């Protein structure tokens, strides 16, 4: 056990920190997240800069243009990016989900076509998983893909798809066997978002911003060579995608929480805090350290065994609740000023946005109810809940 960076890790961290200090444009620093993270040419240029410096796809194999680094490098990368308050590479879905799934299940042609363009932010991806009738229950997918000669014809609707409004490609889960039920008969397709019949409508959230989209598919033609994995084997491939989503997610979340806790402490120093508020702030700082070191423990297991430790399954859930408590605590510190938005608001409205946005954290990417089921069943071994 040694919680310090190895000499190689320390060197990587120091270089990255220097590079960030030199390369991150001032306009992008202190990025508050939300819809702003998709927009503007600056974010795309920043993504390209990350790629050119070798920071895109750190853990991807070198043969596909990645860094071939151990997972700890990705963890360090996420920590330092968050500490610098730098926006993420625009290709979050491509780097974290589509790319790894293509590496695991894709054809050589698919690998050649997509992987390097994902790294360089020349291709932006979105995913098409959730449907209006199938939120937590992914196996209830009804978007249909009908095989006609050398192409699938896709009809249906997806929802809660971030990046869809700027995406070039969609990783789409469809039902290719109309008589099938639940996990069988699903096929995973790579869909060109510029195909005729694809329509994207932004979904406005309670923050007033639109970060997610609905995607409507009407008779969209997808060539059979765009099947990812086997026809009818979509469920297994989708599970790979979700596993990759959850791999180093904990680090990204914890690193972002660290920034928010630091800002909360500054807020309390600026405005003063009562004894009960100080107690709550200390509680959140302690919880953050717990999350951070739990992410380290999970990562150590991943690096030793190739499988993330069971501790990792708890990070998203605990983070989401911590992030919600943090936002409410900040509003309490702001008192009546918490009502102010935009220009009048203290700290540019950071906390007002944070607090409302955080209500989505326990819903998106697996609701807390589903995640508790998963912990109960897969980690504790309790019987499947009804």
């Amino acid at each position, binding site marked *: 056990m040694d919680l310090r960076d190895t000499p190689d890790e320390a060197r990587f961290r120091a270089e990255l920190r220097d590079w960030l200090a030199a390369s991150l444009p001032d306009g992008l620093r202190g990025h508050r997240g939300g819809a702003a993270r998709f927009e503007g040419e600056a974010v795309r240029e920043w993504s390209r800069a990350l790629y050119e410096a070798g920071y895109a796809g750190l853990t991807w194999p070198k043969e596909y243009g990645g860094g071939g680094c151990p997972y700890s490098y990705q963890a360090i990368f996420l920590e330092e990016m968050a500490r610098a308050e730098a926006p993420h590479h625009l290709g979050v879905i491509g780097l974290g989900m589509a790319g790894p799934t293509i590496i695991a299940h894709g054809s050589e042609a698919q690998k050649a076509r997509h992987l390097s363009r994902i790294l360089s932010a020349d291709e932006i991806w979105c995913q098409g998983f*959730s449907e209006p*009738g*199938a*939120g*937590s*229950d992914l196996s*209830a997918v009804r978007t249909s893909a009908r095989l006609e000669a050398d192409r699938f014809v896709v009809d249906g609707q997806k*929802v*809660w798809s971030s990046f869809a409004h700027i995406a070039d490609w969609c990783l789409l889960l469809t039902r290719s066997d109309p008589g099938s039920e639940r996990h069988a008969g699903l096929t995973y397709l790579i869909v060109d978002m510029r195909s005729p019949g694809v329509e994207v409508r932004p*979904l*406005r*959230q*309670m923050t*007033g911003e639109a970060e*997610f989209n609905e995607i409507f598919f009407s008779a969209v033609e997808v060539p059979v060579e765009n099947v990812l994995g086997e026809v009818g084997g979509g469920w297994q491939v989708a599970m790979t995608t979700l596993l990759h989503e959850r791999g180093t997610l904990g680090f990204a979340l914890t690193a972002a929480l660290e920034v928010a806790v630091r800002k909360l402490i500054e807020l309390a120093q600026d405005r003063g805090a*009562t004894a*009960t*508020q100080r107690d709550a702030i200390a509680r959140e700082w302690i919880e953050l350290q717990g999350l951070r070191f739990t992410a380290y423990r999970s990562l150590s297991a991943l690096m030793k065994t190739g499988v993330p430790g069971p501790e990792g399954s708890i990070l998203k859930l605990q983070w989401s609740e911590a992030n919600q408590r943090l936002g409410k605590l900040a*509003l*309490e510190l*702001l*008192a*009546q000023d*918490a*009502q*102010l*938005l*935009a*220009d*009048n608001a203290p700290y540019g409205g950071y906390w*007002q946005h944070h607090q*409302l946005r955080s*209500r*989505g954290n*326990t*819903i*998106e990417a697996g*609701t*807390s*109810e589903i995640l*508790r*089921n998963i912990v109960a069943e897969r980690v504790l071994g309790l019987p499947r*809940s*009804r």
Partner: protein
Amino acid sequence: MDFAFTPEQDELRSQARSFLAAHPEPSWAELAGLGWTGVSVPEELGGAGLGFLEEAVLVEEMGRALTHAPFWSTVAVVLPALPPELQAQVAAGEASWTLALGPLVPDLDTATRIAVVGGDSIWELDGAGREMLQTNDATRPLGVVTGGSAGRRLAGSELLPRMRTRSRAALALEACGVGARALELAVAYAKEREQFGRPIGVYQAISHPLATTYMELELARSLALWAAWCIAVDDPQAGLAAAAAKAQCAEAAVAACERSIQAHGGIGFTWEHVLHRLYKRALWIQSWDASGAQLRSEVAARLLDGEGE
């Protein structure tokens, strides 16, 4: 010992519920026409000569409906400070009021007149400019006043504690309305929305938090009604009851909205759904005047140090 509304009060509630559901932004004249703006104004001044329990019914319903009107600021806050002829104007729907106590002033977009505190008196503020701010709860916006000068003297400032007690009790009641509606929406959704082949209300992960919400709201409502009754009969516990009620009801309403959003999943997080507006009102109520922690600190001072007795 009788802790139930009269049939007349129940009737007022059902009238209010149907009117407000149809009129989220009623004009002041419409509210006056229904007799609501003068419900506690003496009959000789054109009012109904009733009391705070009837006002309690109305503000609870306005919370539920997210009514955008200066009813709380006029009737719950400023009314007791108004001389008889100004009370008559309120009853007649000719004037509505807000109180500018701090830099942020509520209902400044709709209230026709402004009261301020200066020295030992409460005055009408004349000739002030108004600037509306972009704020979180669009149904109860805040603004700032600029300039202006003290006009007519309305009352002595010894009335302020009573006004604050009425304000807190009314906000507690509004919070009860907000919370109850958020819970009803969640219950209806949980009966109808299916996942894994069953309505989600069969899952205890959904149903138990809603049961908890029901329980918290009922407890909170008992406090709000206690405070309302204390005000109606001028009970010496009114200030304590209103502080307790405002603390508990605001937090219960915020939690009710949060659990309702969670039970709704993604749809509850959208701009189109009414839930975020209920939530923002609940947050407004919580942040206005004094937070739950500040109110509990007042309560603790009474309990532990014998202050304010």
